[in-house]
């Protein structure tokens, strides 16, 4: 509470490294993603330019890796390093250690990228890199996660509870999930079909127990602050939190249909996915009223705009997952491009918009800068939103059609590929639009850091530099 401004600067270099890494990896990933989709749309390109490291088989896992570990995870850790010490009033110690850990995370991503480009991916779900990269990630996380956990301590009784609970769950889920997946899958402890179960469990942990809780930390912390409204019912929030943490790890099993996964596990995955709607409904009941009648403020505050889209994407993503888990639909859509639709909704729309909103809201607090009133802000929002909407909807419709066609033995595979082509064209345009949005954002981000623009419209939520009372971030329930 009483920490001076200078004490927060110990973590600011670490957060800056993580955010610069996040923005850069997103830009690179967006470009490579366009190249990958172009090859899927025009297969002849692979015949004209047969280069292994830009082949679709290399680029597809590479972009997923870049977005998951480079863009979103790095960015989330970066904004949390700004947020947590300020809301808890406990500044981080050992600034150099945090900076080294942030650098280590970027080095791990870089090595992962180099490995996938040159050697190809491992084929393991959500674990496309080697054991050495896992070790680097875990070593970096040990320092960053310990720092964040320390920030949870003193404010436990005084601050808003829900963001802390989600953060606690996420901080435990990542090392547990990644560590056990590594040991089981590469330590020879999981024989045969158990490897596939372990991959699906890790996939669930990564998305639904690590990234989703972190996005919810940002929504539960920043939406009340930006709208000036408290979150309503703590009991409902706790119920939703319990459901998210209890069921999130089981969702991956609904991705399997027959094959190596025992049927009871698949059924458990389906039930968990549908029951998770309870958590989403609970959180929706708490968070949606914060935005009621706030359209004008959403227009004015770019951070609030992105967070509002992230909140809506949260509902849509989990409703979509519940829809796909319905028996019959699940059988029809397994092994289709609906997986890409789900990925677009979760990664780009839900997590990505929460991250963008958090950067817009929190960077001014960390760097004592304000965002300029610049057309790039509008370009970032509209190109990203329309891009993601077109990618997700086209993949969704294409996947359902693909599933129906795959279940008709009279339709040849080449015909199914031709069904996908018009949708892939729109997906490509959507991905280019998203890339343009990211380009606008990164230009703005770096120009703001270098103070190239006149800061005329700051949207900082901390009234820095004089009054840095962490209580300005605690209007939510107690």
């Amino acid at each position, binding site marked *: 509470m009483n920490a001076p401004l200078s004490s927060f600067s110990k973590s600011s270099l670490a957060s800056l490294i993580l955010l610069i890494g996040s923005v850069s990896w997103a830009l690179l990933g967006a470009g490579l993603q366009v190249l990958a989709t172009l090859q899927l749309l025009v297969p002849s390109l692979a*015949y004209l330019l047969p280069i292994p490291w830009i082949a679709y088989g290399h680029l597809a896992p590479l972009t997923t890796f870049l977005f998951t570990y480079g863009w979103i995870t790095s960015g989330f850790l970066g904004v949390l390093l700004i947020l947590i010490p300020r809301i808890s009033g406990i500044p981080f110690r050992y600034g150099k250690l945090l900076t080294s850990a942030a650098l280590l995370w970027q080095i791990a991503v870089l090595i992962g990228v180099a490995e996938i480009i040159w050697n*190809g991916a*491992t084929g393991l779900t959500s674990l496309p890199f080697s054991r050495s990269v896992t070790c680097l990630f875990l070593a970096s996380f040990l320092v960053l996660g310990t720092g964040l956990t320390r920030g949870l301590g003193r404010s436990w009784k005084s601050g808003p509870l829900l963001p802390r609970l989600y953060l606690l769950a996420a901080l435990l889920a990542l090392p547990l999930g990644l560590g056990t997946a590594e040991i089981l899958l590469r330590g020879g402890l999981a024989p*045969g079909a158990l490897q596939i179960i*372990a991959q699906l469990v890790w996939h669930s942990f990564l998305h639904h127990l690590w990234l989703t809780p972190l996005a919810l930390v940002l929504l539960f912390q920043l939406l009340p602050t930006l709208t000036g409204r408290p979150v309503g019912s703590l009991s409902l929030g706790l119920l939703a939190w319990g459901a998210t943490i209890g069921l999130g790890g089981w969702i991956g099993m609904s991705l399997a249909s027959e*094959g190596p996964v025992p049927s009871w596990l698949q059924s458990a995955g389906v039930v968990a996915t549908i029951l998770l709607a309870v958590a989403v409904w609970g959180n929706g009941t708490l968070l949606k009223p914060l935005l009621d009648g706030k359209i004008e403020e959403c227009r004015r505050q770019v951070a609030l705009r992105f967070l509002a889209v992230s909140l809506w994407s949260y509902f849509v993503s989990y409703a979509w997952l519940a829809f796909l888990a319905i028996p019959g639909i699940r059988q029809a859509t397994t092994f289709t491009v609906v997986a890409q639709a789900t990925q677009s909704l979760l990664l780009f729309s839900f997590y990505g918009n929460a991250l963008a909103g958090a950067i817009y809201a929190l960077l001014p607090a960390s760097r004592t800068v304000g965002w300029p009133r610049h057309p790039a802000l509008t370009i970032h929002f509209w190109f990203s939103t329309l891009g993601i909407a077109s990618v997700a909807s086209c993949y969704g419709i294409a996947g359902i059609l693909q599933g129906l066609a795959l279940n008709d*033995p009279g339709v040849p595979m080449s015909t199914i590929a031709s069904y996908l082509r018009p949708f892939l064209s729109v997906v490509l345009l959507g991905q280019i639009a998203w890339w343009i949005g990211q380009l606008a954002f990164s230009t703005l981000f770096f120009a703001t850091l270098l103070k190239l623009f006149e800061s005329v419209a700051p949207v900082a939520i901390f009234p820095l530099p004089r009054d840095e009372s962490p209580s300005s971030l605690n209007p939510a329930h107690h």
Partner: protein
Amino acid sequence: MKSTQALVLVFLALLFAWAGQIALGFFQVGKLEPILNEETNYTVPPVPSGLAQTGSRVFAAQGCLECHSLSVRGPTGSADIARGWGPRRTVPRDYLFREPAWIGSSRIGPDLSNIGIRLPDANELMMHIWNPRLKKASSTCPPHPWLFDLKVSGPIIEKEALPVPSKDWKQILPTYQAKALVAYLQSLHSDYSLPEAPLK
């Protein structure tokens, strides 16, 4: 809620998810044993050769899993068997010796669980990896020429050379990686009967 209570709750929830799936999964599919086929006196599923196991890593590294699945579903609710992708549905025991094991996520191309039955000839598989459009002009599968060496033709054509002309009349010779990949693809077949999934 106290912080210690929250910590215990979170830990129990994560443990429940982890143990519920991995530990119970281990008791169900982690202890499966191969079955002795009394007619042939071999065990099924067959143990793949070392070359095939190396090939599985080439298969993953080339990103084949981005477009091909490795799991045939039963006749109820899917057309996998009707499409000729396998004689029966795939069951956990089929993955017993697959290291690492995977099922893929997409079917831009056909399922490959039984490619070893559908395309048993090593030369045809080699030709497909070199240039899928040699056999089927409309194929959307990309070529993998980097898995082959081009060598100037001498008076003797090497036995392993692909029977296709190349630029400057060079011989197209498969690398170790290409041979391993073909060995892996040939090892993918489930044309044996299992108690839980008999051949009909």
